[in-house]
Structures are given as structure tokens and as C-alpha cells.
């Protein structure tokens, strides 16, 4: 045990007492009995037991391995190829992302209201379930909704479109067999929905996620829609917000790596005024920009919806156009200027638009 006492994850008051009693290295402590430790250091029996328990856990092969085992980049390459990615059904976006949303990384989707963030999240929750024989992941999804914008009817429409798409593609018997099990009901039953009303519930949910993911190892996607909403209202202490968000970001990337899930976060936009000009930038502050591994910014350009890959460790920056149709998130048609007919959005369950549609204007 080469750990120094100040670097151990113990309460600061306990550590101060241990150091004052002269214990410098973890190996000094390892042979002590709780009562002995209690008397020499002056901490309570309970604290002494906790200290020794923590040291014993640290010495466990599993914990040690986590901190000390290194993978070579070659092993990591094989792992990445095995993990795969989640398609978005918009081929331009999939190409820009290198195949789709990567599993094992956190992706942040920022955008103004009505540009399609929740639509994309719902599409991903359906796409993650595409069976392996069709090139998908065949996994389940966990959808954490903080805004209340999850609409089951819309997901059902997207699921139906996905099933139809797969039916058209089915070629061999294995695919046809998988297709028999793929129904709208099945897709809906594989999405776990959690509704969080404020940031405390969100933090608690993320804290409980490791256990949930261990119990449900088939979950391949975790969506938090949106992470900005609970943190932008009634938060007086901004520095505390930054700390909480940073801690949350680290927990999420740890989840993504250890349980091989793709984590998708939605963020809102805010206006930044500088030099007399105003610009739309992602909300939650400068330091939150470092939190996610990849950042996708959805924005309007006139009547076109564009997606820009702003930050990625492996892909080049790119901007592509997409559209939202009845079937869900799709490629934009190859026309120089989209006419009202082709960019129509209509949903059987009514018009849930936040942005004025062409029909309203005409």
C-alpha cells in the first residue's frame, strides 16, 4: 500500500487527526485494530472502523485494478470497435459523428427552443433498440425527463417508422426472425422513463444510476432531457452550481465508461452580449463546456435546421442539415431551398410546435 494518508477518501477532520498522530502512509495503519486506532488518534470507534474498512476495500484486487490497470491503446481500439454507436437515421449526421452517437462517451446536444433536441433524444431512444442483425445495438434506454417534454404518442410514431424501415431492409431469415419480435409495444416497453422535478431529484437519480445499470445490463443509452432546466431556475449560488455540475459530469462519464452506455444530455441556449453584439451560446456557463466529451449544437438558419459538431475528440467539425418529419429525425432533402411542402411537420396527436410552422404563416 503506497497511499499517503492525505490522499485517502476520508473525512478531512479524521485525516487531520490521523496526521497529527503521526500516521503518514496507509501501510502504517493497516495493522491496527479499531480500539487501538481509536485511542491513539482520538477518533470515535465508528470512525476508526470506517477508516480500516476503507483501507481493506482499497486493498481489494478489484479496486486496485481500477486505479492501476492500464490498457494499451490497441486494446482500447478493439473495445471501441466492439462497442459500436447509435444511429440517428439522419445519414449526414451519422457520417459527421463517425457512424452515430458513440457508446461509452457523453454527448451534449444544445439548441434553441423548438429546434429538435427532444425529437433527437426520442429518436435515439428508439434507435438504440434496433436489433444487432440490422446493425443496431439491441439495447434498452433510460430516459430521464426533467422538463416534461416526453410524449409517448410521438415515440410510438417514431417506433412504427423504425419498424417499417427495418421491414423494408429485412433480407435473410435471421433478420426476419428478429423483426417478428420488433413491435411498437416492445420498443415502448424497453424505454425506462424517470421524471425528475428539481435538481435534487436529478442528483439523487444519477447517484442511483450505477446500481440501476448493474441490474439492467442491457441498457445502452441514458438520456437526460434536459440537464439545464433544473439548474437554471432558483439557483442563487452560481459557484455552487458550477461545482455540482462538474461533479455530475464526472459521475456521468464514469457511468458511461464503466457500464458501456451512451450518455446524452440536452442543454438550452442563453444570450451572451459582448462588444455590443449578442450571440447565442450554450447555457450553464463556460466550465460546463468542458463536461461533455462531444458537443452538438442545433440551430436555425432561416427556415433550415442545422446541426454543428462543435467539439469532438475524434471527428472533424462539420455542419449538416436535418429535418424533423412524421417518422422522426431524418436527413434534409437535397434541394437548394426547402419549400413548404417538403419541410412540413405534422403529428397525428396535434401540433406541438414551438416555432411557427409554414402552414401557420401561409
Amino acid at each position: 500500500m503506497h497511499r499517503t494518508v492525505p490522499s485517502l477518501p476520508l473525512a478531512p477532520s479524521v485525516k487531520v487527526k490521523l496526521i497529527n498522530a503521526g500516521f503518514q502512509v496507509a501501510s502504517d495503519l493497516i495493522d491496527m485494530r479499531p480500539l487501538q486506532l481509536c485511542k491513539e488518534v482520538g477518533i470515535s470507534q465508528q470512525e476508526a472502523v470506517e477508516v480500516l474498512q476503507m483501507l481493506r476495500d482499497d486493498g481489494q484486487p478489484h479496486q486496485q485494478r481500477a486505479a492501476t490497470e492500464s490498457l494499451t491503446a490497441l486494446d482500447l481500439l478493439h473495445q471501441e470497435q466492439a462497442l459500436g454507436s447509435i444511429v440517428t437515421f439522419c445519414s449526414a449526421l451519422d457520417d459527421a459523428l463517425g457512424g452515430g452517437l458513440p457508446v461509452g462517451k457523453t454527448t451534449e446536444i444544445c439548441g434553441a427552443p423548438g429546434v429538435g433536441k427532444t425529437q433527437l433524444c426520442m429518436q435515439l431512444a428508439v434507435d438504440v433498440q434496433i436489433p444487432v442483425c440490422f446493425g443496431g445495438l439491441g439495447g434498452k434506454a433510460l430516459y430521464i425527463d426533467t422538463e416534461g417534454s416526453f410524449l409517448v404518442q410521438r415515440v410510438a410514431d417514431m417506433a412504427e417508422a423504425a419498424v417499417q424501415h427495418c421491414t423494408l431492409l429485412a433480407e435473410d431469415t435471421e433478420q426476419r426472425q428478429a423483426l417478428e419480435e420488433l413491435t411498437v409495444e416492445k420498443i415502448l416497453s424497453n424505454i425506462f422513463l424517470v421524471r425528475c422535478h428539481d435538481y435534487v431529484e436529478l442528483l439523487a437519480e444519477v447517484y442511483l444510476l450505477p446500481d440501476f445499470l448493474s441490474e439492467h445490463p442491457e441498457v445502452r443509452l441514458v438520456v437526460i432531457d434536459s440537464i439545464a432546466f433544473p439548474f437554471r431556475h432558483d439557483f442563487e449560488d452560481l459557484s455552487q452550481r458550477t461545482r455540482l455540475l462538474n461533479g455530475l459530469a464526472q459521475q456521468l462519464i464514469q457511468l458511461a465508461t464503466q457500464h458501456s452506455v451512451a450518455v446524452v444530455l440536452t442543454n438550452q441556449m442563453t444570450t451572451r452580449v459582448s462588444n455590443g453584439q449578442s450571440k447565442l451560446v450554450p447555457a450553464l456557463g463556460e466550465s460546463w463546456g468542458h463536461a461533455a466529451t462531444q458537443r452538438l449544437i442545433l440551430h436555425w438558419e432561416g427556415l433550415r435546421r442545422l446541426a454543428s459538431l462543435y467539439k469532438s475528440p475524434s471527428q472533424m467539425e462539420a455542419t449538416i442539415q436535418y429535418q424533423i418529419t412524421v417518422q422522426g429525425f431524418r436527413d434534409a432533402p437535397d434541394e437548394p431551398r426547402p419549400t413548404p411542402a417538403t419541410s412540413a411537420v405534422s403529428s397525428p396527436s396535434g401540433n406541438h410546435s414551438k416555432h411557427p410552422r409554414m402552414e401557420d404563416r401561409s
Partner: protein
Amino acid sequence: MVILREGICPGVNEEFIKALQSEDIKTVEDFVSCNPEELAQKCSLSYKALVAVRRVLLAQYTAFPVSGADLYEELLSSTAILSTGNPSLDKLLDSGLYTGEITELAGSPGSGKTQVCFSVAVNISHQLKQTVFYIDTKGGMCANRLLQMLQSKTPNMEEQMEALQKIKVLRVFDVFSLLACLQNLRSNGLQKASVGGGSVKALMVDSVSAVLSSMLGGKQNEGMSLLMQVAGELKMIAKDFNIAVLVTNHVTKDGNGHLKAGLGQSWSHGPRTRVLLQRIEGAGTSSLRTATLTKSSRQITGFEERNDLIMDK
């Protein structure tokens, strides 16, 4: 502070320790700072024994001074300069990363810090054929990108695989795991890696601020201590094993609205050289970045270099 335990040196047995403890002497420092004559009288221990133990303990625990000339000789023979693979960045860093020092890259999201780390790792593992340790705290490590960079350097598959095997990745996501990882590297990890052939020449931590920023500020009183411990561990690794340490950091705005590296004043004494990476405003989605030298013991600061981070495409 080392606790006095039996067997710490010949002559120190249990009754010796008990007698000292009754005088409230628990550590080597307490023992050595006491006058042996007075101690002999108070503790009823023999003066000779006390002096003998004192001599042994002093010999064991004192630091030895080294002459400046010896230090200089050692520096000349052991320091190596590792090229980053990017000539304009090398120029900024006075030909590259120096072993025995910490170099820091700071920048806003998407400014290219991780890409520079990748390019340095690929350069060292492929060109110099040395092992690199990469500690990833943000999930930004993407082996595919490393392979892409290697493919543009050499079409030979075997060479690519060999270079990939020389890059060792460790993934830790909180500060205590980071400290455990660094302490483990210092005590046996680095030696084990060098035994297998090919010495370790570089250690990268991407990023240091991701694990530390949630511990600093507010009512937390441990953050600074952990920050200094991380800085201390990195410095010790750099010095003891002659390794170049490269860390990445986030940026904050200072009073005038200018960008500066994060983690505050105390951290700023850790790295010897600091570089600030920035996107070029108004350039849209171009891949050009500026790198500014903000702290250096060898060059004038304020140097700016523009470079295209996707040079190896």
C-alpha cells in the same frame, strides 16, 4: 513525521518506546529535537543508548545536500527534449517538452487540447519508440483517432499496432482515484513498464481540472490540499523518473474579461511552462488555432503561434 516504532533501528524496543511516550515523544522529530541528557534523566533510560539511537535516526532520516555542479551535470545527462510533432508548437516550447518538468495546455472547450495530447503521444510512441502513459479523466481518449493519426504517418500496419501498444491508457474519474493512480505509478507502475523494454518518457493527464474543479471553493476545506497533492505527485514523478508531464486545464475569465488558465494561483506554480490555446474568432469552423506562451522559464512569454491542428490529415 515518522512514528517511533519498535525495530525502527537497533536498540529501540517496546519499553524504550513506552518510556518515551510517557514524555509525550511519539515521532522521530520529537526525539531528535530533545536534549539526550534531560531525556536520560526524565525517562530513566541510559544516556549512551539514547545517543546511539539518535545518531542512527539522524543518519537515516536526514536529507543530503548536493552541489550545484553535480546537479548541472545530472541535468545535462538526464534531460531529454521530446518533440510534439508540430513544428510551430515546438518553437513555442523551445524545441519541445522537457523531461523532468510539467507543461500545461489550457484552453476553452474545442480549442484542441486533447488533439495536441494525442499528437504528442503518437509522436513519442511512433517516432521515438518510447512508452507513454495517458491518464484520461474525461472520456476523451479515442483510440480510433490515434489510429487515424498513425495511419497518416506510416502505411505499415505492424508499425501502427506497435505504436498503439506503447500508449498505455488509465481511466480515472475522481481526484482520489487519480491520486491512487499517480502514487501507484510512482511506487511500482513506472518501473514495471520500463522493464518490458522501452522506457517511459511521457505522462499525460487530460484533464486535471475536470477532477479538481468540483472540489474547490464553497465551504469545502479539502480542495486546496488535494490540488497541491496532485501537483506534488506529478512533480515527483517528473523528477524521479525523468519523464515529461503534460497536463490540460480549463480556462476562466479574469477581471478584464481575458482568458486565463483555471485552478488558481496555487496550481500555477506546478507547471514550468504554460500554453494557452484559442480558437480564432470569426474563422467559422476552421481548424486553425492560436497557441500563446503564458509562462516559461526559458522564453519570452506572449509568443503567439498560429497552427492548423489537423496538419496530419
